[in-house]
């Protein structure tokens, strides 16, 4: 529960800060950093008299379930650390591994795809096909980076990866730079900022899969998206940056990592679908192959 509250607050605040940073880059004033909380509360207090069938109601629920399950598995802090609040964040860290995580991180998008399909909105269908194509694109370098790590340390447990980095004292982003670069390139697609915002392109697709969802549906999607962003950032910090000893370090590390897709996105236009897929199957996959070779040989 503490983890969920933390993830919600941190994810929403990051979203607000990103809007502020985007505005400053555009030479605008921008909304306050707590704007996302106001938006979420307003969406929750709207009526949601939209009915397209059972699957449409389940779509946002699937998203939320996927976010929470992956949040439970990813260790937020280093297990066995000495902070007094460390025991609050020990969820199911020991029982989940990377292979299950790869599966469960896709589950939410698939659930949303089913829900969006039932709305019958053509924009939703186009958004879903684009989203799944893009996912096929970035999942390959992402899995390659993870496989490289798994091969070189003969484990799939995230807790083990943190412990390895604690023992050797070197972050995996330095000892396995190729895997890290591959994962970062895949992360650009995972966060769906420009130039990979082809799924929910607001002016082009009318926000794609979420176009028939207002009110509480949109609130659920928004909060699950915030939680999921936190999960992904925490996973990257755990795998490549040695985990976090306390919450301050966690926030610093995740924020630094979050700025990569955000700042790259602000100054980028949007790719077409086939350009995005070609991007991911080009250099990121090649570097991923090199990373696997490096892991096998050394």
């Amino acid at each position: 529960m503490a983890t969920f509250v933390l993830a919600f607050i941190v994810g929403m605040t990051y979203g607000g800060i990103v809007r502020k940073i985007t505005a400053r880059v555009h030479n605008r004033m921008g909304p306050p950093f707590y704007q996302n909380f106001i938006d979420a509360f307003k969406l929750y207090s709207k009526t949601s008299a939209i009915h397209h069938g059972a699957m449409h109601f389940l779509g946002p629920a699937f998203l939320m379930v996927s976010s929470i399950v992956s949040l439970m598995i990813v260790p937020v802090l280093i297990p066995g650390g000495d902070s007094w609040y460390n025991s609050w964040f020990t969820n199911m860290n020991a029982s989940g591994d990377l292979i299950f995580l790869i599966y469960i991180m896709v589950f939410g998008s698939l659930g949303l795809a089913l829900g969006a399909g039932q709305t019958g909105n053509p924009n939703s269908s186009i958004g879903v096909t684009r989203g799944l194509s893009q996912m096929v694109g970035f999942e390959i370098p992402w899995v390659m980076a993870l496989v490289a790590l798994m091969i070189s340390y003969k484990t799939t447990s995230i807790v083990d990866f943190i412990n390895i980095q604690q023992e050797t004292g070197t972050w995996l982003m330095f000892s396995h730079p190729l895997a890290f670069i591959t994962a970062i390139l895949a992360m650009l697609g995972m966060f769906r900022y420009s130039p990979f915002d082809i799924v929910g392109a607001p002016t082009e697709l009318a926000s794609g899969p979420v176009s028939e969802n207002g009110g509480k549906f949109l609130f659920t999607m928004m909060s699950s998206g915030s939680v999921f962003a936190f999960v992904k950032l925490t996973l990257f910090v755990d795998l490549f940056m040695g985990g976090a000893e306390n919450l301050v370090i966690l926030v610093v590390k995740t924020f630094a990592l979050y700025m990569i897709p955000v700042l790259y996105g602000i100054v980028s236009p949007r790719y077409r679908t086939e350009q995005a897929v070609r991007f991911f199957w080009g250099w990121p996959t090649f570097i991923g192959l090199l990373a696997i070779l490096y892991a096998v040989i050394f």
Partner: protein
Amino acid sequence: MYNDKNSQKIVDIIQNWARKHSIWVLAYGTGCGAIEIAPTMTSRYDAERLGIRGAATPRQADVLLVTGYLTVKTVKRVVRVYEQMQSPKYIIGFGSCTINGGMYYDSYNTINLLDKYIPVDVYINGCMPRPEAVIQGFVKLQQLIAEGKANGAQKYLDNLEWYKANQAKIAPKWIAKAPDYNW
């Protein structure tokens, strides 16, 4: 539930505060007024600092911004868009054309007063209203929301027959066949 000043509960006050600071606008930009939306949203006038941002679809929007004149043909679409929006929902009539027809007042196929077909909360006068005037209109809407007086959606529900009759006068066949939206 009418939401007037005297009967606002504490929950209403908090909700209205959130609604006031988070206005998602669906710009119905078939009139010439749509040209003023871009400078209002971008860096010179920056409406996002007031919490105003664009919404992609009617389902997500709070405010329907009708920019400029409406022909008999487009008013049907506006009604359809308005009925798909989720309440609480507001309408801003933008430019003189929505008030009295503006320079198209004697045209055979434009409507003169938008308020006869859908309930307008705030009018912004001018031809064209500058971005300052647009932001002034939004601030006026924020005041009305905070005071609980912006209940056009409730007015539409209460006087549905009157609005439907007015719509049927200009588009009789369309109103008879119009599907029922679940608002």
